[in-house]
């Protein structure tokens, strides 16, 4: 640490001639800007959704918006309602207007269910892969985040995400997305959507901790992933997911 030259000093030392030093790397301090002890290398966060428990109340969506001040017209999480009739014809809708309340709809239904959606915080996140400026990245504890001081708002990540969970924020004109409530989980709290779910349909936990609820549930192996063929290795595990949902 003590041997680190400041940038200005280095400028003087190098003079004008040696501009070929392209990458500047300093020593690694611990995760800064924190009042609590939080070791981000000790965790790897994952998420699970038990679709059989979701009642479609959209409390998660309201909580996410209140907690994260999500702009109008875009969503970090939402709940899809699937209604499938006897001929396997699938109708899907969401309640993203007004109070975010699902209204009853007429029509024959052979089976119906809700599927909450959220950023999958993929282990091989394609959005971070395609970000041209390194503004989208995965933290060491497994959360895909956006650096709002670097994002140029090109929208490539929005195109690349197979799950449609990213958006260009209409107010900041930058890419934005679910942060898994990084400000909460690093303080030992649950993400707002999990903390507000009345039925426990949303689960959040540490994949590095074999005793966590999430690890316990996942060990049973009875889950599915969304679009696994994309090779993104999503970390949002779906329990009891209908075959129509991909």
């Amino acid at each position, binding site marked *: 640490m003590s041997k680190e030259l400041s940038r200005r000093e280095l400028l003087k030392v190098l003079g004008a001639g040696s501009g070929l030093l392209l990458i500047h790397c300093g020593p690694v301090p611990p995760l800064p800007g924190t009042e609590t002890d939080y070791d981000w290398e000790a965790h790897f966060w994952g998420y699970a959704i038990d679709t059989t428990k979701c009642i479609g109340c959209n409390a998660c969506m309201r909580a996410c918006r209140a907690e994260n001040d999500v702009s109008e017209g*875009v969503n970090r999480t939402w709940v899809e309602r699937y209604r499938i009739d006897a001929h396997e014809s699938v109708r899907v809708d969401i309640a993203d207007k007004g109070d975010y309340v699902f209204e009853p709809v007429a029509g024959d239904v052979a089976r119906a269910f809700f599927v909450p959606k959220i950023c999958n915080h993929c282990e091989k996140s394609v959005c971070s892969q*395609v970000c*041209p400026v390194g503004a989208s990245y995965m933290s060491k504890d497994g959360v895909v985040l956006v650096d709002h001081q670097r994002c*140029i708002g090109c*929208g490539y990540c929005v195109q690349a995400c197979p799950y449609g969970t990213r958006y260009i924020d209409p107010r900041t004109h930058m890419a934005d997305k679910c942060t898994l409530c990084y400000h909460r989980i690093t303080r030992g709290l649950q993400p707002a959507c999990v903390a507000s779910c009345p039925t426990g349909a949303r689960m959040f936990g540490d994949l590095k901790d074999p005793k966590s609820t999430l690890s316990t549930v996942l060990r049973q192996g009875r889950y599915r992933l969304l679009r696994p063929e994309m090779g993104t290795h999503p970390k949002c595990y779906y329990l009891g997911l209908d075959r129509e949902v991909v």
Partner: protein
Amino acid sequence: MDFVFPNEVNVTWTVMIVLYPYITGLVAGAFIVSSLYHVFGVEALRPVARFSLASAFVFLLFATLPLLIHLGQPTRAFNIMVTPNFTSAMAGFGYIYSAYSLLVVLEIWFVMRSEFIARARRGGLVGLCCRAILLGNLFESDATRAADHRIARVLAGVGIPMACLLHGYVGFLFGSIKANPWWSTPLMFVIFIFSAIVSGIAVLIFHYFVVSWINGWKVDQPCVRSLGRYLWGFMIVAVALELLEIMSIAYKQTEEWEVLGQLIEQKLMITYVILQFLVFSLVPFLLLAISALFKLRDKLANAIIWTAATMLLFQVLLMRWNVVVGGQLLSKSMRGFTDYFPGLWEKEGLAVAAVIFTLPFGILWVFNRIVPLFPNAERRSA
């Protein structure tokens, strides 16, 4: 079939992103025409060799403008070169674009040095600018001309793969997005290169005729005929590749065809099937075939070639539209489609697009005032 993810209702990439590959395509195409003369010695193309190089240059100047207008944070555009994240296909853009721009500028410098010297000697403010461009060195001899020629040749040679890279790379940006079945194909790289060449030749023909007509010049008949034949050949490859891509998906009847078929049927019937293929590919193909295979009177042949070239300009624009916008109309839920059509006056709207597309022609006019691009043009006998 009507569900769209909530964040997909508004299309992210607008008409600006349609314009961007269109303009880079014109750059790459025009550059390759100039290289046909400078590297491969196609003498017939000599009359448009400079014109094509200058066209490549002026379009290059504006290739990034639609991108800047589209960026949410245009002031951070240089982040792409400051902290490129090389796992991203897009990260190389800044470097590839800069390197190619540098190459084109250098080639212009070497190819047109004599003209710049002549203009600099005439004095005035423009002359002073030319002097600055020449870095104050107005020395010229047969030996320097020969040296310039040799360097230009090397640059033009290096420029061909770079032009292909610049534009094929744009295709790759789309082709590598695995989340989007309408884009995700390795063919995209090749399709973009060939459609770029088509649009480049087409814009040269279109513009050459227009300029000649305005100035009362006689068009160089062998040159136009030759351009027409090249256009015909390249358009066959380009359209064949475009068809190959869609036919193989359609024939294989895989899962993705279920949605892509509906996308074409419900959203792209007019712009893709009818306009891009049936009207703006088939008609120019037939016209160019006639002009290439039959002995026509010059006037008729010229009319046919000009019409075909103009139509192909639209064909390539339509192709860019159908790729860029078409891909975004399809929801990643694979269960529905959204809609998009740009407004006339919005920031990323049609008016701005039209201005961006017109500006290069204006700059080219200025360019021509400084360094004549058609020094040997003959006046049409009245």
